[in-house]
C-alpha cells in the first residue's frame, strides 16, 4: 500500500517535488521541533499562555494599573491612606469615615501605595529580567559549549576550567556583592547571571557536541569536504539548539526567582517596582504579624506562576529531546 502511494507521488512533476523537499532546511526543522514541543505537551502550551498573559499585562501596565505604584495615595485631608484592606475585605463605611473611597482590589501598603498597581507593574521587571538573563545564559552557554566541544584541546581545557571556577562561586552571594557594588539596577542580576549560569548550559552542550561530533553523518560531511564553520552551523548547531532552548526556558525561571530573592534582600532599585521588592516591603513593614495575606500572597503567586511557566516549557523540551523520561 505504501509502495502504491509512493509510486503515485513519483509521477507528480519534478517542479512539485523540488518545492517540497527544499523545505528540509535546518531552520524549518528547528521550528518543527519547537512546534512539536507545544503540540505534544499541553503543559508547555499552558506555560506559553502564562507568559503571553503576563507579557500583555507588562506592556499595558500603565493602562491597566488604576494608580501610580510608587506615589502614596492620599485621603481628603491629604494624609496617606495607610494599610487599607482590599475593598472586599474592609468593613463597610470605614473608608468614608477616613475620608476616601475604597476601590483597592488588594488594599494599600503601610505608606498608602496601591498594592494591585504595584503587582501589575511588577510583571515588567520580572519578564525583563527573566527573558534577557535567559537569553544571555543560553547564548553564552551555547557558544562556549560549541567551541569547547568542537575544537577540544586547549580551547576546551580553558573553557572547562573556567566552568569549574564558575561552579565554585556561590550564586546568590555573588549577585548580592555585584548588586551592592554597582548602582542599584535590575541589570545587575542579568549581568551576574550571565557571568555565572552559563556553566550548566555550557557543560551540557559541550558533552552533546562531543556525541554529535563523533556521529557518522558529521564524518561524512568532513569527507565530503565541508569546512569547520559549515559543520558547526549546518550539522551540529541545529541538533543542539533545542537543548539551548530547554536550558533557556529553565534559565527564565531561575532568573525570575533570583531577581525576586535579590529584591527581597533589599538590593534592588527602589524606584523600580518588582514582586520581590513588594515582598520585602511587606516583610519589613511587619505585614506578617498583621496577617496581611492580601499583601503577601499575590506577589508570591505571580512569581510562582511565571517560574512554573518556565519549568513547563523546559519540561516540554525535555520530553521531546529525552523521550525516555516521558510521562507516557
Amino acid at each position: 500500500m505504501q509502495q502504491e502511494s509512493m509510486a503515485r507521488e513519483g509521477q507528480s512533476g519534478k517542479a512539485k517535488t523540488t518545492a517540497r523537499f527544499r523545505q528540509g532546511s535546518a531552520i524549518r526543522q528547528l521550528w518543527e521541533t519547537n512546534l512539536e514541543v507545544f503540540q505534544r505537551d499541553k503543559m508547555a502550551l499552558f506555560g506559553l499562555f502564562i507568559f503571553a498573559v503576563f507579557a500583555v499585562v507588562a506592556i499595558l501596565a500603565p493602562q491597566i494599573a488604576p494608580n501610580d505604584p510608587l506615589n502614596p495615595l492620599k485621603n481628603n485631608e491629604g494624609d496617606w491612606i495607610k494599610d487599607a484592606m482590599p475593598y472586599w475585605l474592609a468593613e463597610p463605611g470605614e473608608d468614608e469615615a477616613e475620608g476616601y473611597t475604597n476601590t483597592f482590589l488588594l488594599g494599600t501598603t503601610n505608606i498608602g501605595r496601591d498594592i494591585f498597581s504595584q503587582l501589575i507593574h511588577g510583571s515588567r521587571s520580572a519578564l525583563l529580567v527573566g527573558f534577557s538573563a535567559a537569553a544571555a545564559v543560553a547564548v553564552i552557554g551555547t557558544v562556549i559549549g560549541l567551541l569547547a566541544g568542537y575544537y577540544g584541546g586547549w580551547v576546551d581545557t580553558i573553557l572547562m576550567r573556567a566552568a569549574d571556577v564558575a561552579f565554585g562561586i556561590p550564586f546568590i552571594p555573588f549577585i548580592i556583592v555585584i548588586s551592592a557594588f554597582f548602582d542599584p539596577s535590575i541589570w545587575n542580576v542579568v549581568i551576574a547571571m550571565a557571568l555565572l549560569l552559563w556553566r550548566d548550559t555550557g557543560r551540557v552542550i559541550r558533552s552533546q557536541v562531543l556525541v554529535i561530533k563523533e556521529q557518522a553523518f558529521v564524518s561524512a560531511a568532513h569527507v565530503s569536504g565541508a569546512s569547520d564553520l559549515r559543520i558547526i552551523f549546518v550539522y551540529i548547531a541545529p541538533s543542539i539548539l533545542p537543548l539551548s532552548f530547554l536550558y533557556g526556558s529553565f534559565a527564565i525561571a531561575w532568573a525570575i526567582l533570583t531577581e525576586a530573592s535579590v529584591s527581597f534582600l533589599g538590593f534592588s532599585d527602589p524606584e523600580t517596582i518588582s514582586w520581590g521588592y513588594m515582598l520585602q516591603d511587606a516583610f519589613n513593614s511587619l505585614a506578617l504579624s498583621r496577617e496581611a495575606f492580601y499583601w503577601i500572597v499575590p506577589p508570591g503567586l505571580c512569581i510562582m506562576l511565571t517560574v512554573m511557566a518556565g519549568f513547563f516549557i523546559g519540561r516540554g523540551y525535555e520530553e521531546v529531546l529525552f523521550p525516555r523520561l516521558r510521562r507516557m
Partner: protein
Amino acid sequence: MTILSIRDLSVNYATQDGTVQAVDGVSLDLEEGQRLGLIGESGCGKTTLLKAIVQVLPRNGRIAGGKILFKGMDLLQLPAAEMRQLRWREIATIPQASMDSLNPVQRVGSQLTKLLRVRGGYSKKAALKRAADLFDLVGLDTERLSHYPHEFSGGMKQRAVIAMALALEPSLLIADEPVTALDVIVQHQILEVLRELEQELNLTVMLITHDISVVAQVCDSVSVMYAGRIVEQAAAEPFFSSPAHPYSLGLQQAFPNLARPRDVLVSIEGYPPDLREPPSGCRFAERCPFVQDACHDIDPKLEAIGDSRAAACLRSNEMDVLRVQSEDPSLWQRVEVAQGLAPTLDPSPKMREGLFASPAEAQRVHAPLAPLWGKEPGDGGGDVLVQLQNVSKRFKIGGGLAGLLRGDKEQTVYAVNNISFSLRRGESLGLAGESGCGKSTTGKLLVKLIDASDGEIIFDGADLAAMDDDSLLAFRSRVQLMFQNPFEALNPRFTLYRSLTEPLVIHGWKDENKRLDRVIETLDRVNLRPAEVFLDKYPHQLSGGQLQRVVLARALVLHPDFLVADEPVSMLDVSVRAGILNTTRRLARELGLATVYISHDLSLLQYTCDRIAIMYLGEIVEIGPSNQVINNPQHPYTKALIAAVPVPDPTIENPPLRIQEGVPRPTEQFIGCPFAQRCPDAMEACLTVRPPLITDENEHRAQCHLYGEHRDSPKLKRQLP
C-alpha cells in the same frame, strides 16, 4: 518427554496505529534434550515468542490466544507468583544484548551468588562454591568472580551470563542471539562452550538467531519464522541439505559460505508485510520468486511434508524442482529489476558524466560477474591510484594539561604500524581482523579523516600530508567513505535530498536543477526507484537497507574514484545484505571505482574483494588475492580467523581453535612478531626477531617466521586452551 509445547499461540501489540499481530498461531514442540534453532530476520516475532514464553511482554503486549504447556503446566493459567518461581529455576533465559545484562556496579561474583542464594536457596558457603564451579564450567578464571563487568571483555561477559543461566540447573535454556556482535574468534569459542555444555549437561535449548551458520553449528532441529508464523520445521541436516520453503531457500543462498563460495549472493528483496494488516494469502508471496496467483489468495498452513518435517507453502510438493531453480541468482533479482530499469555506465570518463543507459544493458549488469581476482596485478588492471608507504598512526592518551593535573601518565597507542600496500583503479581490497586491529583507523587514514603520524599516503600522485586547501577540496570530491551504521550516517534533520545534495553544494554546484538531476540519477543507480519519492523523506522513514543505499548514493553522488566502505552491511539483516553488496560491487565496476572494504567477516570479503589484507595489532600480517588468502592461508592468525568462521552446514564441523580470545591493547611496539603472544606455532625467534616478508608468485605476502630462515627455531612451550 516433551518439555515445552506451544499450541496456536498469538501475541498482539497495541500501538498507536493499530494492533500488530507479532506472533500469529504458532505451534511448537520441544523434547527433552532437543536443541532447536529458531531462525528469521528481525521483526519476524522470534523475540516476542520468547517474551511470551517467560511472560515478560511489554505493557502493550497481550497474548491473544493459544496455550503454552511447560512440562504439562499451562503457563498462561499460572498465577504470577508461581510463574516467577518458574523463571530461571526451570526456564533460564540468555537475553538479547546479554553483554549489558550484568549490573555494572556490582561484582560479577556477587551477582551470581545472590542469584544462587535468593533464587536457589543456597547457603552462603555453598553459593560461593557453586559460583566457582560455574565459572570453571564456562571457562572463566575463578579469580574473575571479584571483578566488575567493565573489567570483562565481551566474550567473558557472555560466558558469565551463560554461567548465570546454568546456575540453577534449568530444564530449558532459551538463548536470544547469544553470539551476535562478538568477534569471530570469540563467537567460535562461545559456540564451543555451548556445544560442550549441551552434551555434558544434556540441556534442552532453544536458540534464537538470524544467523543460520550458528544454528548449523549448535542445533539439531530448526524452525523458521516469517512474519509471525512458523513457515518451516525440520531436523537440521535435511533443512540445510534440502530446505522446503522458498524463504528458507533464500536465507541459505543469501549467506556467504567460505567453504562453498558463490559468484553472486541472493538477496531477498522487499520487506516483511505490515503485521497490522497482514495479507490474506501467503505472507511471503510479495518477496517470493516462485509466487503463483493462488499464493495471494490462499493462506498456506504448516503441513507435514515427510518424516517430522513441515512447511507452509502451496508448492511444497514441487520443492525439488524449485530448489534447483533457486540456485539462479537472477531469479531472486527479478523483483529488483522489475522495479525499474537498471542504468549502467561505461567506466570511461566521458560516460561518467551522467548518462542513463539503455534498458537492454540492464540485463548485462545483472548477469553474474566474472571474478576479478584471477587478474595479475600490473597486467592492465589500471594504474596505481592509492599507495601507502610505511604508514603509522599513533594516538596519545592521557597526558595534556588535564592529564598532568590528574597525574595520568601519557601513553601511546600504536593503532596502525608501518603498513604498506597499493591499490589500482577499479580494484577492491578487503581489510579484515578482530576489532582493535587497526582496520577502521586505516580506513580513516585513507580518506584523510585523520592524518598519518609517519609514512606517506599517495593518492593519484599527490601526497595526502602536503595538500593545500584547493587540492584537499579536489581530493575530497574524489574519495568517499561509507559507514557501518546507516541509521547514524545521515543527518536525522535533513531530508534525503538535502543530505545527497550537500556534497554537491560544498563542491560548488550552483545550479539547483543540475544538482537535482545528479541526485535523481544517483538514487536511481543505487536502485531506489522512483527516485523522486525518496527526496523529501527523512532518514527515520526508511528501512535499514534503503538507508544504506542512500548512504551509498551520497558517497557516489560526486562520482568519486575511490570508496572506503567500513562494515557496510554488518548492521543489516542477512536478507538485504547481499542486495547492498551486489549493488556496490556492480557500481564499483561500472564507475571504475577503487574500493576498500573493511569487515570482520571473511566470507563477505571473499565475495566482494579482489584482494584481502589481514591486520593484527596495527600491522598487515598477510595480504594477497582473495582466493589465495582464504584457501591457502599462510599466517597462523589468518588460519585461526578462517577456522573460526562458522559454516552454514551442519555436516561440516568447525575445526577447534588453537588461539585464545582477547586482542591486547596496542600500547607497545614489538621487537618480534605482534602475534607471538597468541600464536599456537610461536617460536623463540618470534619474540625477538622481526618476521620476514614472504612473497609468492601471486603477490601473496605473509609476514611470518614459519617460512623464513628462523623456521627451525625452537617452539615456545605454552599451555593452549
